[in-house]
């Protein structure tokens, strides 16, 4: 019997016994669906981290000079205390660096603190108030939906102008035009000159609850003591130029702080790599744990299929006897039952793929996790599903193939 014939027969049998086949493919279905679903989450977060986070939120070829690293999981208290004793970054540090770079870079100052922004009787609380210099928007890739960013002139003169995040504009103005209106930030009056495009959220954290004001405007006192910066942002044109700029920044800062050669830096130069390294650690754990879960459900799926196939062989003993009496060889019977279990598993895997993709879209829509389907996971899912079917079918099929036709025909 040709393979095609065996497959056709298998599909007929599956169609004829929908309920039983449905149960038997459940295990593979769940295995493949969870494989694709989980893989999609990891894949989605991965892409988010490498593409959107690194490029948009942090900025490409960008580093930050800070008192301590920005993203620091699992740091012992002693290290925290050491970091807290470090001197802070000063305006004068930033100016010295700007003068010292020999590679072309774009730089910005940044200090942030939560505060309340209000318009008439409406208040937006817990808003990230950022005092920054004018190139901040460029480095952070913040495009304006309406209005404009502030100028270098306005930054130097400390003009009381503000650029709002989308959520803040929505909260304060609902459907009125925000441009030209006066908002109050910590008791000071600021004129709205622009609103930034909606940024969405990352891993559940909203990205649109901010106000950016000129670094030297009156609100600077709300974010930091006079002359102090949270971060000095430096964006180079290429990665090698960024490395060069980082070396120069390190040299300049060490000499300004009078550090001896043996002494460690008492400042941090952060890139988006730090964050990505942290994520890579998490995803490595997922990559180890995930296959375990999938393998367990596929093994269970295989055992279920094996049992159902054994039942099926027992039920169809007479049919097997008949087929043998009509000239079916062992390999014909073997092939028939192998095709059947492989087909059941593949159909289960196919449904699993569909469910996994649906699950992915559901997760992407309903949760902050940026899930995205990986084509590799689909191929892998189907191949593994079909493989489970073949492996699970071997024992029942060989039992069927070994049946004695006389005894099989005599069975009621």
């Amino acid at each position, binding site marked *: *019997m*040709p393979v095609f*014939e065996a497959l056709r027969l298998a599909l*007929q049998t599956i169609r*004829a016994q929908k309920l039983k086949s449905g149960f038997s493919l459940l295990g593979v279905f769940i295995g493949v669906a969870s494989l694709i679903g989980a893989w999609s989450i990891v894949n989605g977060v991965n892409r988010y981290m490498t593409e959107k986070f690194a490029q948009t939120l942090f900025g490409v070829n960008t580093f930050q000079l800070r008192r301590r690293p920005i993203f620091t999981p699992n740091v012992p208290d002693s290290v925290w205390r050491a970091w807290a004793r470090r001197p802070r970054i000063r305006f004068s540090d930033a100016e010295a660096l700007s003068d010292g770079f020999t590679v072309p870079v774009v730089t910005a100052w940044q200090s942030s603190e939560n505060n309340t922004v209000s318009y008439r009787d409406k208040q937006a609380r817990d808003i990230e108030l950022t005092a920054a210099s004018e190139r901040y928007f460029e480095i952070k890739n913040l495009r304006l939906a309406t209005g404009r960013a502030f100028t270098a002139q306005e930054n130097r003169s400390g003009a009381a102008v503000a650029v709002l995040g989308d959520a803040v504009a929505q909260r304060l103005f609902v459907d009125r035009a925000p441009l030209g209106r006066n908002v109050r930030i910590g008791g000071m009056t600021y004129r709205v000159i622009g609103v930034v495009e909606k940024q969405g959220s990352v891993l559940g954290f909203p990205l649109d609850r901010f106000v950016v004001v000129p670094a030297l405007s009156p609100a600077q006192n709300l974010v930091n003591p006079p002359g102090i910066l949270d971060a000095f942002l430096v964006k180079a044109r290429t990665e090698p130029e960024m490395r060069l700029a980082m070396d120069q920044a390190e040299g300049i800062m060490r000499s300004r702080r009078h550090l001896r050669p043996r002494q460690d830096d008492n400042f941090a130069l952060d890139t988006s790599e730090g964050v990505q390294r942290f994520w890579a650690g998490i995803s490595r754990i997922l990559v180890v744990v995930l296959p375990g879960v999938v393998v367990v459900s596929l093994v269970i799926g295989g055992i279920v299929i094996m049992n159902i196939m054994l039942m099926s062989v027992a039920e169809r003993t*007479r*049919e097997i006897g*008949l*087929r*043998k*009496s*009509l*000239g*079916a*060889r*062992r*390999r*014909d019977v073997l092939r028939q039952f192998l095709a059947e279990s492989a087909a059941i598993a593949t159909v289960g895997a196919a449904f699993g793929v569909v469910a996994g993709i649906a699950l992915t879209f559901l997760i992407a829509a309903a949760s902050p996790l940026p899930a995205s389907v990986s084509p590799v996971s689909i191929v892998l899912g189907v191949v593994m599903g079909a493989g489970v079917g073949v492996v699970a079918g071997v024992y029942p099929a060989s039992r069927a193939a070994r049946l004695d*036709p*006389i005894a099989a*025909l005599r069975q009621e």
Partner: protein
Amino acid sequence: MTLPLPQTFRTGDTPLPDIVILTHKLTRAYDMGGEVVRALQGVSIQIRKNEYVAVMGPSGSGKSTLMNLIGCLDTPTSGEYWLNGQKVSDLVDDELARIRNKEIGFVFQTFNLLPRANALHNVELPLIYAGHGARERRAQAARALERVGLGDRMEHRPNELSGGQRQRVAIARALVNDPSILLADEPTGNLDSTTSAEIMAVFRDLHRQGQTIVMVTHEHDIAAHAARVVTLRDGLIASDQLQAA
């Protein structure tokens, strides 16, 4: 009374050309939990082309065992079995499957049709294992069904057919590969007397068309349709006689 064999067969001989079935001192013993049961104790029989033979005998006489051996479903403990000029008694499993497929058409007491498949597909089954293409299979199966008068029932499933029609589907299936022998095991055992007569008429027609038929039965009035009756008792041939049609 036993018919003289057409040829005095000795080990090492080959059967005469018109002998379809030749068994020589065929024995079959089963090991039933340490106890050896000798179902056949040396059966020598020769059946010519286009003979219509009924095999009779009480239960335990060995007629089912002989039937299984002639049908190549089983292999003898000793002795020779030649089918259509080929010695099949020492063939292995897959070779026997091929012989069953090409040379033997089975008709069972319980019909043994696949319940989910229609008449046409049931008749096609042997051709699938013979490796024929789909179109050829369908045409051949349709011809076989027309031969047994079921040309208008091809799309019907077994549960949509009467007992007699089911047995005729089974006969069409047995004939579809144009076998050397039609081997029927109590073909009317599950049928009433009217339907039995109908099936016997089909057998008579097939015999007239040149088909060799071997039929196992325990009913004398069914055996009466055959031209020759072989009776077994205790694993040996008790009698072998021709009878008027």
